[in-house]
């Protein structure tokens, strides 16, 4: 499996992400944001960080990077795209995923392990997990307060696009950032573009606090 990890100026999770995919036996390349073409990748990942210093809005400037045109074309042809944290924000700004991010309700940058509940697993990304599974994965963001209009939200539920929600260790609702319905991760209608605020690439080894990211990172392997 060949994974492309896009690097924007200000991206800072690129190396962790590449390393995570290499851990499960994938070949991973960095793709600099000024590239205009994508090689034959099985998966393109937009990693976390602060692309373009998060100026204007998180992800708003990265959207106009030359590589994003290629990423959009790749996604529209059915290619798998995963956006983690800032990558998720970029996918929202690029309209590859519905909705938008606002500041965390409590205004704090939140950096800690947080429990998540699997809401839908009928997609490539969560196929190795079961509905209702509770996993523990780090979050690290100031703008994870996901917003989407009610009509779109309903459609997303109907299509199985709401895939991960924040919860406590028993699966009860626990919302760290004010996100609508405690949503932590979504996908597009065609289920080939995924976005989540938590960082599965930071939960790959027990020495780092947990291994719950492995099943997600592995899911794209053919």
């Amino acid at each position, binding site marked *: 499996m060949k994974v492309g990890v896009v690097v924007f100026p200000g991206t800072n999770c690129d190396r962790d992400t590449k390393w995570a995919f290499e851990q499960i036996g994938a070949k991973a390349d960095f793709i600099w944001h000024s590239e205009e073409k994508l090689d034959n990748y099985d998966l393109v990942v937009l990693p976390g960080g602060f692309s373009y210093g998060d100026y*204007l809005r998180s992800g*708003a400037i990265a959207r*106009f990077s030359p590589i994003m045109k290629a990423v959009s074309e790749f996604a529209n042809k059915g290619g798998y795209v995963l956006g983690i944290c800032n990558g998720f924000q970029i996918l929202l700004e690029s309209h590859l995923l519905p909705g938008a991010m*606002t500041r965390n309700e409590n205004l704090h940058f939140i950096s800690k392990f947080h429990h998540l509940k699997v809401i839908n697993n009928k997609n490539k990304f969560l196929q190795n997990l079961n509905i209702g599974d509770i996993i523990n994965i780090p979050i690290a963001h100031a703008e994870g307060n996901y917003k989407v209009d009610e009509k779109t939200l309903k459609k997303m539920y109907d299509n199985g696009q709401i895939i991960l929600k924040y919860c406590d260790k028993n699966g009860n609702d626990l919302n760290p950032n*004010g996100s609508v319905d405690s949503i932590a991760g979504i996908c597009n209608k065609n289920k080939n573009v995924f976005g989540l605020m938590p960082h599965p690439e930071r939960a790959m080894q027990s020495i780092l606090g947990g291994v719950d990211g492995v099943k997600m990172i592995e899911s794209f392997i053919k």
Partner: protein
Amino acid sequence: MKIAVNVHLKKGVLDPQGKAVLHALNTLGFKNVENVRVGKQILLDIDTNDKEKAIKEAEKMADELLANPVIENYEIEVKE
């Protein structure tokens, strides 16, 4: 021509910054402040004397980049 694009979160979208500022103002003694919304102003210096054209261009900029229509509204103001 100087054009200002004022961007605000839409009514109904919670503005955590506004809430924090409101709290601080109340603490400072400005008890009669009931609501605060924090937005941003983007000042554009556009090389044209055609006011209509400048406004049209600023609208296009706001739609494509300066505001996110999912959560934000904007208004355009001609400064000079």
